[in-house]
Each structure stands twice: as C-alpha cells, then as structure tokens.
C-alpha cells in the first residue's frame, strides 16, 4: 500500500535524523567542550594577568 510505504519512509527518515543528530552531537561534543574549557581557562589567565599588572 502506498500509505504504508509513505509511513515506512517517514519512520525511516525520522530514524535517520534521530540517529544522525545524536551521533553528530556525540562526536562533536567532546572537542567542543575541550576547546570551550581551554578558551575559558585562557580568558581567566588573561584576566588574572591584567589584574596583577594593573597600576592603580
């Protein structure tokens, strides 16, 4: 039946997107977190340096 085929297609596409987005998120989250942490740490270091070097 055409309707069943359409439903199968829709379920397949939904599965593709669910799996794809989950997989992409899992693949990307670790590097993004590491880069974010490094960036935040760099920002803190720079701020500390600025505070230490500031002349009142």
């Amino acid at each position, binding site marked *: 039946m055409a309707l069943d085929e359409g439903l199968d297609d829709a379920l397949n596409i939904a599965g*593709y997107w669910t799996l*794809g*987005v989950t997989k*992409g998120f899992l693949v*990307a*989250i670790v590097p993004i977190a590491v880069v974010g942490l490094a*960036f935040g740490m760099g920002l803190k270091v720079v701020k500390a340096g600025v505070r230490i070097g500031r002349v009142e």
Partner: protein
Amino acid sequence: MSVIAILPLPGLLYAVVKKDDDGNIVERYFEGTLDEAKEYAASAAVTLGLALEELGADILEGLKSVGSNLGNATLQVVEYAGPALVDGIENTYDYIRGKLQGREPDIIAAITVGALAVLAGVYLFNAAKRGTMTYAE
C-alpha cells in the same frame, strides 16, 4: 591572366585568339572576316557569361545548402539540449543517491557536527570580543 582578342591577318581576315600576359598568342579560336570574328567573339562572351552565371548559381545554391544544414544542425542542438541536460541532472542525482544510500545517519551526523562547530566558533569569537564567557546582565 589571358585575354581574348581579335587579330588582323593578311588579306582582310581576322582571327579570334587568346593571348597570355606577355602578349603571346596561346590559342587561335576562329578565322574569318571582321564581322564573323566580331560575331564569334560576341557569342563566346555570351557563352562565358552564361557559364559564369551558372557558376554563380551553383555557388549560391551551395551556400544556401550550407546555411540550411547549419540552421538544421543548430535547431537540432537546441532541440536536444534540454532533454540532455535533464538526463544529465537525473543521472547525477541517481549516482549521488546510489553512493549515499545506506549511510544516511552518517551524512546527517556530519551535517550536525558541522553546524555545532560553526555555532561553537561563532560563540567563542563573540566571547573573545566581549571579554567574558557569559553575557553581561
């Protein structure tokens, strides 16, 4: 270039001759009285004119034929260009679809990774511009 000329001969006779560039007689066509020679030369000129006219008509016909063939070829190219383009696009689509079939989640994962990377990059760039990781209240 050769020239056709009427040449006087001894005894009130005249000849129709062909001369080359140096004036030498190359060929002798006709001998007779002056009137006959004139008549012969005139008829020869008419014959030459007719031959030239025929040659011109042939050339014109040939050019017309070339133009017509070229026009038909151009029309055929225009006629078949559209279907060929559609077929090409369809074949390309089928090829790409065949290559990617069965790996849909991987493709979507790659798209997601790219989007997240771009978003993270933009966020970090703006954070560097602001000087803080959080938005100021």
